[in-house]
């Protein structure tokens, strides 16, 4: 089910190195393979969603990408550099999920002190404005809402004018309005040509804000393509029917139908995911003992679940 039509923009010959170049990444914690063989190249200017359920390995991959941890195997290059070098030069910055702010500092002081860590940084007024929080510069971080704190983290990430910004589930815990404002600020920034990679488990965020969606599950990339391609995956339907015995021949016939993505038997309920529900229904009614046939449209969530759970343990 993996498809790879990764590059949305043709890469000019002799151009800059990839913004992100991960090869054969592996990282285990004890017996848990948090990252189990990830290869990913992101070209400059792409806005990539790193999409997957909790525990898929997104945060571990981001830690490796930022040089906060080292892989057991594989290589990480950020803008052609070692990640720690890229951080030291301010070429990459990150917005982490939670924490990372001192509650007793004001918003303005946090920006001011972080700016001082760089040899040259954008002005505090500029980054606060771009993050949409210029009006709360004097407020204590501790009394800011979750959304305001997240936009402060974003403002901090803008300070070195990085080529790449990495965001780890940036809208976790925000209300709908906060999420919308955050993405508006980010999207406006992306329009300037910066490379952005964000992790999320919200499919609608990936769909609305990314040019490219990389689906991860169990430490692997299970799908990688444009938002439109992922949407296509979700355009199919779910055909379910009661079937007491599914013979191997029936199953093979179902799988052989055009458009069928998966065939699954849960108890005596058969579930077929397909882009051609008519064909499946016809086959079920004519050549099997299936009864109680139901056809339902699949949402994005269902496609997401299908992709991220189908690969559990079965190498694709």
């Amino acid at each position, binding site marked *: 089910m993996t498809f790879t039509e990764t590059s949305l923009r043709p890469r000019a010959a002799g151009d800059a190195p990839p913004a992100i170049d991960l090869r054969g990444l592996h990282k285990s914690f004890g017996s848990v393979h948090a990252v189990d063989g990830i290869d990913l190249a992101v070209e400059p200017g792409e806005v990539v969603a790193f999409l997957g359920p909790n525990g898929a390995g997104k945060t571990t991959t981001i830690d490796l990408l930022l040089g906060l941890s080292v892989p057991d195997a594989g290589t990480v290059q950020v803008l052609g550099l070692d990640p*720690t070098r890229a951080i030291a030069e301010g070429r990459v910055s990150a917005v982490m999920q939670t924490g990372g702010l001192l509650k007793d500092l004001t918003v303005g002081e946090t920006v001011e*002190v972080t700016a*001082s860590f760089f040899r040259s940084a954008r002005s505090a007024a500029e980054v606060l404005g771009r993050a949409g929080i210029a009006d709360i510069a004097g407020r204590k971080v501790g009394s800011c809402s979750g959304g305001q704190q997240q936009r402060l983290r974003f403002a901090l990430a803008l300070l070195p004018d990085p080529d790449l910004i990495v965001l780890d589930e940036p809208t976790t815990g925000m209300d709908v309005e906060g999420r919308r404002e955050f993405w508006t600020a980010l*999207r406006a920034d992306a329009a300037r*040509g910066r490379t952005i990679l964000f992790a999320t488990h919200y499919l609608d965020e990936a769909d609305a804000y990314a040019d490219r969606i990389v689906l991860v599950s169990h430490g692997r990339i299970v799908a990688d393509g444009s938002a439109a391609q992922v949407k296509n995956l979700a355009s199919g339907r779910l055909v379910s029917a009661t079937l007491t015995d599914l013979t191997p021949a029936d199953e093979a016939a179902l799988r052989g139908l055009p458009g069928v993505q998966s065939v699954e038997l849960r108890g005596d309920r058969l579930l077929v995911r397909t882009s051609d529900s008519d064909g499946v229904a016809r086959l079920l009614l004519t050549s099997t003992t299936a009864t109680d046939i139901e056809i339902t449209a699949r949402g994005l969530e269902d496609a997401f679940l299908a992709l991220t759970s189908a690969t559990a343990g079965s190498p694709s």
Partner: protein
Amino acid sequence: MTTTETATTATAARGTAQRPTAAPDRTPRTGLLNGRFLAVELRRLLRNRRTVIFTLVMPPVFFLIFGANAGYRHQSVGHGNVTAFIMVSMALYGAMLATTGGGASVSVERAQGWTRQLRLTPLRPATYVTTKVLVAMVLGLAAVVVVGAVGLAEGATGQGGALVWSLLLAWVGSVVFAAFGLFMGYLLPAENVMQILGPVLALLAFAGGLFVPLGDGVFAQIAKAVPTYGVAQIVRAPLTGESVTGWAVLNVVGWAVVFGLGAAWRFRRDTARV
């Protein structure tokens, strides 16, 4: 405008939009100290009223409890009176409180994820630790000055140079406890690390003979191994005129090495890439 439209126009615009061409100077900063960072850290210290008041009020109060006996003014310890002797002891206690607290404040910043955030910037970890120690030493100096002022007002006298030397040594010697604070701050995950360290420091002060004389019993023997013992002996030496024993020097150097290595070990662990 709906979000989808925003996304589409943004994508379209990105093909033509150019990043600003003026390339920023990306070489990481050199130099151990960062004035802006130091200034903000000092501002944070002043804002932390509870710590400041505790550190500046406790030692003079203890001094008044243990040292405000009129009779002490007329008893000599060598180059000063007993009041002065108790004053420099309490100055050391105040400086210890300040530097331990300053070092231990890394635990709170670790808990808040600030140290992790700093790792995503070019800030050198050495700059962070040095700044924390410097700020702790500033508060330590304030504690020494306050105890000195209260002590002089209460009749502490001695040869001018002896008093100044003792107070200065109390301040400088407290750097050992900055290392202790850092070590504990990296070791203890608790946000309320000072609630643990406060009583520990009081105990160390008692056991090392800062609050009451050690006498000649078994406690005096135990005291020789306590981290406050050596510093106290050295701090009092100008005032008593006694020469500093090798044991006192060994005590200070030994504990400085233990705390320094401990802090370095935990610090490396904290900033290691795992």
